[in-house]
């Protein structure tokens, strides 16, 4: 029907599969997110470390290149060995960039829909609350995947390709740690950002809230642990909790120096992360409704 006909017709054509509809939300969100030059520059910066990792791995296996820059192999191997620590450090750095990314993108995800009563429009369609949250989570999860486990695994496979199948066989746990560890952090950050976006309608305030949620408990934890000689404070601090899980996933020992001599037990770290996700989901569940609850 052409626009000049100006009449109304029932649509009887094909429909998109139900399972893929949540992906409409990230597609629309990216059209807005990528309009910001600051964001595009930041995203470019996020690939610097993986690119540097690629160079280091390449140099490890290319004596000609090493001799060209006059760097002996043993010195490089001593300074930057390609092992679990190398990949863990990369994941930690990219993990912090994920947090910055959540700060930039997260607060604008749900609040505009709530501010203008947009939720009934989503939920009056064949589109559930779960799909809405999944779609909004996917906005962050896809971007974070692009800077964490995808480049991490590419580096792993590049190293495996250069070093041979035996290296890959001996270090499969690294690939698992990169993939699994990245997804835990992605889930925690995405859900937390969405929960903040759902409850704080003003973007700058939402960003400040995310900063507070990240740094204030961390500071509190350090003070509490130092004064009480305990590790309990870390239960409310996201970063030390996450790094505890990452360190163990990579099969590395926890260094007491990083935790004021009181490393956090792994089970407690898991518990804290799961609790953070559950609380975020509960907050989202209370807020993501098709109607305003007036009390």
């Amino acid at each position, binding site marked *: 029907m*052409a626009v000049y006909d100006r009449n109304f017709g029932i649509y009887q*054509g094909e429909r998109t599969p139900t399972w893929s509809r949540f992906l409409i939300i990230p597609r629309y969100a990216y059209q807005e997110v990528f309009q910001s030059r600051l964001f595009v520059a930041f995203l470019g910066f996020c690939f610097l470390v993986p690119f540097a990792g690629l160079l280091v791995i390449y140099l490890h296996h290319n004596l000609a290149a090493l001799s060209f820059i006059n760097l002996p192999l043993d010195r490089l191997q001593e300074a930057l060995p390609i092992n679990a620590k190398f990949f863990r450090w990369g994941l930690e750095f990219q993990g912090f960039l994920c947090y910055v990314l959540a700060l930039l993108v997260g607060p604008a995800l749900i609040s505009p829909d709530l501010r203008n009563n947009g939720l009934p429009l989503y939920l009056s369609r064949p589109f559930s609350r779960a799909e809405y949250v999944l779609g909004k989570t996917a906005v962050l999860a896809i971007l974070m995947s692009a800077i964490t486990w995808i480049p991490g695994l590419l580096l792993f496979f590049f190293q495996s390709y250069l070093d041979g199948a035996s290296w890959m066989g001996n270090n499969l746990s690294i690939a698992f740690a990169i993939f699994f560890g990245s997804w835990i952090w992605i889930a925690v950050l995405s859900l937390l950002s969405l929960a903040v976006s759902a409850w704080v309608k003003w973007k700058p305030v939402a960003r400040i809230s995310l900063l507070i949620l990240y740094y204030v408990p961390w500071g509190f934890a350090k003070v509490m642990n130092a004064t009480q000689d305990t590790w309990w404070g870390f239960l409310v601090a996201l970063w030390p909790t996450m790094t505890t899980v990452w360190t163990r996933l990579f099969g590395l020992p926890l260094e007491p120096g990083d935790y004021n001599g009181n490393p956090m037990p792994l089970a407690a770290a898991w518990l804290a992360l799961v609790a953070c996700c559950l609380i975020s989901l509960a907050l989202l569940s209370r807020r993501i409704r098709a109607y305003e609850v007036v009390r």
Partner: protein
Amino acid sequence: MSNTLQPVVELQGLEVKFGGRPILKGLNASLTGRCIGLLGPNGAGKTTLLHTLLGFHPPSAGKARIFGKDIQTEAREIRGLMGYMPENDAFIAGMSGIRFVRLMGELSGLPPEQSLERSHEALFYVGLGEARYRKVDSYSLGMKQMAKLAQALVHGPRLIFLDEPTNGLDPAARERMLKLVRDIRDEGKVNIILSSHLLRDVEECCEEVLVLKDGRVATYCNLEAEREANRKFLQLEVRGGDEAAFAAAVEALGCEMAVDGKQRFKLVLPEGVEIRELYRVAAERQVQIRRLDSKRDSLQDIFLKAMETEVAGHGRV
């Protein structure tokens, strides 16, 4: 017109409670009209009923069906058949009209190209063609209402819920909106449920009306049938002669009659009795009929009657 034979919405003892407080109390009705008005005073449960049919609130008891599909077990399919225009401002900030309507179309399952094409059509249809690349935030209230209507139409639904569509509109915009609703109705491809507390909106657009009062069905009637039924309801004003004898003679014709003040009568003519019989009886008794009104029930009468005599839980009175 096969659509009008199948019930659009069936309510069977539908109850909804919020925090233990009953909001909808055992609604029973079978709505079949092309355009059905949902009337009631504020707080009667109109929006709650629409929200329940959309699956926003689970019924605490009873059932409801739309086109024969259960709202609880087939909610997703039902939502695919429906378009919803909410009462309050509802849009997504920062989006142009075309992107907003396109997104809504895609969420309803339209492929992106189809959705874009139909968004252009829908926006032209509601009169926002020239403003479709402007941000919805910058629209006037009337334009936002039209944008809400466009998003309700874009996926070509079979049933549209319009919740107070003329809210906050100036007379010209209100007339445009009602004309659109009538046009959609007259196209005959879609059923409409129009919720409003404005009787004129419903009277101008709807064939049937469901009146809610305090969470119950106060009345459900076909407006045209109701008017037909009251076709022979007359009001008389007479002067001179023997009024009592005139009244007795009129009753002798088989009319139901009531005295409505001095020299005024209300009566209902039975089948087969024509108005000229009244003039004949009056002439025989030397009574002058000064005024004769053939009164038809307006929606206001129906509404006020429903507000006075509430029939609990039953669709027809």
